[in-house]
């Protein structure tokens, strides 16, 4: 596993380049097909509202997949991810318009661990609200 970032070059507090990820209804339909998660809350507005949601919401696993890209784009090698966990705190509401929603993700090195690994703490927000909590990845650096 060859990451392009060296362990010796990072410190606690090193910030990873932040990214923004747009998500529209089309994104969700595509993710449903690719992931096999066809829960109608992710594509059917009528159904979503019937179960008490404000509108269609993104798959939590979609948000989780986007958030780790801040780490994998930083290291270059997605195989360098040793651990990754999140808590789904708020749904990403995706309106039926051309804009959809935008997920903003930032990451920071929170600890340097053994064996050339570091813990990265991620924050993911949408419309100013935190959508992931306890979002942490352990990644092996070069």
């Amino acid at each position, binding site marked *: 596993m060859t990451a392009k970032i060296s362990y010796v070059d990072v410190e606690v507090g090193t910030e990873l380049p932040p990214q923004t990820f747009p998500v529209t209804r089309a994104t969700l339909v595509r993710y449903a097909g*690719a992931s096999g998660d066809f829960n109608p809350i992710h594509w059917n507005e009528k159904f979503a509202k019937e179960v008490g949601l404000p509108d269609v919401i993104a798959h*939590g696993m979609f948000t989780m997949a986007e958030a780790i890209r801040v780490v994998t784009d930083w290291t270059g090698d997605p195989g360098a991810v040793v651990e990754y966990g999140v808590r789904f705190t708020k749904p990403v509401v995706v309106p039926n318009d051309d804009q959809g929603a935008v997920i903003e993700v930032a990451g920071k090195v929170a600890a340097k661990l053994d064996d050339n690994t570091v813990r990265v703490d991620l924050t993911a927000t949408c419309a100013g609200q935190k959508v992931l909590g306890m979002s942490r990845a352990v990644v092996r650096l070069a």
Partner: protein
Amino acid sequence: MALDQSFVGRTYPPTAPYEVGREKIREFAEAVGDDNPAYTDAEAAKALGHPDVIAPPTFVFAITFQAAGQVIQDPQLGLDYSRVVHGDQKFSYRRPVRSGDRLSVTSTIEAIKSLAGNDIVDIRGEVHDEAGEHVVTAWTKLVARAAEEA
């Protein structure tokens, strides 16, 4: 209604192998808009030390969640799936999932809690390849929201 605590520790039989296909990995990577060449270009993956294209970190959830269906749909457990939301998700990787893997999942109920009328179930999915080697462990917390008062 609170779920039966005696299900804690119950392990379900390993699932039939899921064969990871390179085009499925490509489809998933495109669906999340991730153009990392390690997902689609075997040479790029090899340059990183992998024998073939690898899957994005969360790809394996599709496999472990399907396996967790044994728990979710266990009539004896009686979880109300129509009220279930995904609470937490965690993965611990021995190595990345890659094209050609034939993966089997063994699901175990790690914990059952009842909190403010919500039923909370923690499921651990151990993923092994055809050689029996451990690839990844997935922990999934499901929350069945309390039914509204009639």
